[in-house]
Structures are given as C-alpha cells and as structure tokens.
C-alpha cells in the first residue's frame, strides 16, 4: 500500500515554478530519500504533502486522503520541519506532556522520547534555552510522541553533530525495522541518506528525475562506474574525457569516477595508465564498484537532461 501518492503536483510562486508535474510514491515500511540540490523543490513538495501548502495543480494523497486540514492524517504522521519552532517559554518535558495529551497517549511517553534523543537531562529547560542541535533533537522527539506510522522529515539532521547524526540514523533504522515506521527524508547530505534509505526520489528543478528502489536505480544508471584514485585528478579528468568510449567523468580531490560504455572497462584500465604516465600522475588504485549515491544522483540528473533534450 502506498502511504503517499503525489500525481502531477505543481506549485509556483509568482513566475517562479517551484514544483512542476511532480510524481512521487512512498510505500508502507519504506525509507525514501527525497534528494536534490538547494532550491530543487524538496521543501515545497513536503509542505504540500503535509497540507501546509495547497498545490496549484495535481493531487496529493497521504494514507489515501487529502492532507489539507485533515486531523486524521496528523494522528498517523510525525513531522520534523527543517526549522523547528515550538512555544518558546514552555519547558521541554511539560510541553511534550501536553503533546501527549493532545494525541491521547500516556504522559510517560514524553520522557521516553526525550531519552531516546539524549535530551533526558534537559527536561527542566525552557524550549528557548535549547541550542540549535538540541532543538532539532527535541523536534524529533516531538514527532515520535504518538508512535506515527509515517515520519516526514525535512533536513532532519541539520544542526546535529556527527555523533548525534549517527545516533539519529540508527534510530531511523530501528524504528523502520522494529515498528515498520515509514520515512520520507528530505536532504542534500547524500552519504547519510544512502545509509538508511531503501528508495530515493531524485528531485531537481521541481521535478522527480528518477525514483525507485536504490538497487534498481544503481542497476539502471550506474553500470560501468570505475573509480580511479590519483594524486592529480583535475589534470587527469580532461584527458580521460577525450576517450571515445567514456560516457562521463567526475573528479574530486582524491580521484575520478568514470562511466564507460559497457564492455570497455578493460580498455579504460590500459588507457588510464598511459594517460597518467603522459601527465606524470600517480595512479593509487583502480576499482570497479557500486557508485555512491552522489554519483548516482549526478548520473540520473545528466541522463534525464539528455532525454529531455532528445525529446
């Protein structure tokens, strides 16, 4: 069963198109990442899914219902906004106990969720006295109060230190595994998402350019990725790009990632060694492997642009 279905969703702000004919599905028990650069339309999409923004076109259904002003959906959904704000002058535990009463759950749940996000020591603090990271943790605790079946989180790990990020990702995995909680996680921190997501939707310029199970996407887009570690990646990149069978090259500080026509992997090994010799670069390693989510993302975007141009 699909918990979220968005069909041909559109939203514009004046002349700026934020979301354009967006289609998205999130299945029960799935952890789906909504990935894309800043300004891609992730937050607008999430706001439409949460019933905070009315779409200009298309349809969105959450648990099969229209999310706009729909309390039934709220009692099954946990929400973590990109910037979390709560009534500032109330104490953390007191406020969460109030939220427990709102959802009709035992007040002891408030302490449970505070401890789950390592805020057990901050029960007496006013919300306004929390640091940005603590506030983010508090927002996550707030979203967990009523044991929702679906959690929608926009940049959930923003403001968290690496240890807290890691702890939170573990919490996502545990909730998904043990309580079958589905997640829609929006982020542009791709390595993090790749640790927890089983599906992704790649969004850019307000459209979903590729979506599905991560394994399927890797198969579709990332065949023949070869990673070359070198001390001079930026010099090697243009040389490799000249090779006729090379489809794409991306470089970073530690090397280059090359996509080649299927069956040409061995040719690349030989040619890379020759080119490295020519420019006096050291080759530290060559390996064929699965692309990172970042590479997958770049490939999917590029392919989608090519397809669009072809049409």
């Amino acid at each position: 069963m699909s918990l979220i279905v968005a069909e041909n969703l559109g939203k514009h702000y004046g002349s700026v198109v934020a979301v354009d004919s967006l289609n998205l599905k999130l299945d029960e028990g799935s952890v789906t990442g909504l990935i894309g650069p800043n300004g891609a339309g992730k937050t607008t999409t999430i706001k439409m899914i949460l019933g905070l923004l009315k779409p200009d076109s298309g349809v969105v259904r959450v648990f099969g219902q229209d999310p706009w002003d729909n309390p039934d959906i709220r009692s099954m959904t946990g929400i973590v906004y990109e910037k979390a704000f709560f009534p500032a002058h109330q104490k953390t535990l007191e406020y969460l106990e109030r939220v427990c009463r709102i959802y009709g759950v035992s007040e002891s749940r408030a302490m449970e969720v505070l401890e789950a996000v390592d805020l057990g020591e901050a029960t007496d603090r006013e919300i306004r006295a929390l640091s940005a990271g603590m506030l983010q943790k508090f927002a996550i605790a707030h979203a967990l109060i009523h044991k929702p079946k679906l959690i929608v989180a926009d940049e959930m790990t923003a403001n968290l230190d690496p240890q807290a990020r890691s702890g939170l990702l573990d919490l996502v995995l545990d909730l998904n595994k043990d309580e079958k909680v589905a997640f829609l996680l929006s982020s542009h921190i791709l390595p993090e998402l790749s640790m927890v997501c089983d599906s992704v939707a790649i969004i850019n310029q307000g459209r979903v350019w590729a979506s599905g199970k991560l394994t399927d996407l890797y198969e579709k887009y990332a065949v023949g990725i070869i990673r070359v570690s070198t001390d001079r990646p930026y010099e090697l990149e243009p040389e490799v790009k000249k090779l006729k069978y090379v489809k794409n090259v991306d470089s970073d500080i530690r090397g280059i990632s090359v996509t080649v026509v299927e069956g040409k992997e061995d040719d690349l090994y030989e040619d890379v060694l020759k080119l490295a010799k020519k420019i006096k670069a050291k080759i530290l390693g060559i390996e064929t492997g699965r692309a990172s989510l970042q590479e997958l993302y770049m490939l999917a975007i590029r392919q989608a642009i090519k397809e669009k141009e072809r049409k």
Partner: protein
Amino acid sequence: MGKGKPFLEVLASAIHEDFRFPFLEIFAFLYTLGTFAMANFTAGVYSQIGTNETVAFTVTSSLIGFSILIFLILVFKNIAYGLGSELEKGIIQTYFSYPLKRRAILTAKLLSGIGVSLLLFLGIQISAFYIMAPDIVLPQFGTIVLTYAANLSYPLFLSAILLLLTLKLQRGGIGLVVGFVLYIAMSIVSGLALLVATSTKSPLVLQIMSLISPSYALQYHYGGLANVPTLSLPWTPTLTEATLYVVGSYVIVAALFILGYVYFSRRLNL
C-alpha cells in the same frame, strides 16, 4: 480520542505564551488602575446630569474609556505580536501537525488573544461597578450592557482587521505597527467625520462612523459628546436606532472574523 482535549491543550499552550510573566500582571494592574482611577474621577460628575439611564451611560462610558485602550493594546499584542510571530517563526506549523482542524487552532488563538483579554477587562470592570456604584448597576443593567457592547465593538472591529492583516503578512512586528497606525488613522478619520457632519449638517458620515464604532450613536442618543453640544449635531438617534447600529457593527465584526476563519482554513499557505 475526543476532540475537546486537543483543543483545550492548544488553548492552554496559547494562553501560556500570550499571558506569560509579566504580561498578565502588567495588564491586570493597568486595567485595575485605569478602571478605579476613572471611577473616582466620574463619581462626582454623574450625580449632576440627566436621567438614570444617562447617568448609567455616562458612568459606564467613563469607566470603559481608559481600560478599552489597554484592552486594545493587549489584543493587538496577542494578535500581531503573538499570532503574527508564531506564523512567522513556524509555531503555527507545529500546531498544524496536531490532530485538529485549522479552525480549532485559530479559535484557540483568538480565545487566548481576545477572549481572555476580554474576560480580564470585564472582570475588573464589573468588580469596579459593584464596589464603586452598586446603586446604578442593577436598575440600569440594560443600559450598561448596551454601553459595553457599543464600546467593545470598535476594538473588536480593529482586531478583526488586524487579524486579516496578520494572516496576510505573516509577520509579527509589521502587523503590530500597521495595527497602531490603523488605530490612529481611524481616530483622525472619526474626528474629521464629526467636523464634516457638523459643518454640512448631514448625518450620513456620523451614521457610517456609528456602524464601525456604535458608541457614537449611543453618545448622540444620550446627549452628545462633552466637547460637542448635541444641538450642533445633525443626528440624534432613538435608542432603537442606536441599538440597531450596535447590532449592525457586530454583524460587520462577525463578517470580518468569518473572513479570517475562511482564509485561515482554506487559503493560508505556510
């Protein structure tokens, strides 16, 4: 799960924020000071004028005078600074994550922002009446209620306008400034209206003003303003007419609040 409890919890949360220390204490003090100071001031005056009804109207109007300004400031703070800031910062988004209809959230905010302020205002005013002038409260109860209704209509009208502005702007500080500019502008307009009415001898401007602020209609009925003799005014409404203006003004206020509800429930994008 009943729907009453989530609503009451959101209301309690809103009251907690709107009347946190020292706002409740300061405004309660100002209400008390204003009410009792005005009562002392008027105590000697009302015995010298007109009928029992006129006395009740004059005393009530005098008692209300200063406190209504405090009421207006408190309501403006709660709507523009309170609701506006919550819209701006995203606290309303948090409320929208609870299993409540949008209209229930707005009702909670308005009950806290306006309802509690009104209770505070009326509570102190009624206490003042019983302490300072018990002999005129019960015999002239109808006149007193009508005077309160007439005087409260205008601040509620301004509050409704401010609510609409706040929902549209979704900003706290700007809403507050715009609200006070609006109040001052309306005061100037009402002064000009009086001038126009007395110089042209046309009641139309006064009637329009009375629809927004029906205390004018009641004042003209009970003998005019202190600085403008009744005889120079081109319009002296009957009590029934004045009452109809009070009712009409509340119809306008209700329509504006309904507009706010419709916008909040159906159109407000966050």
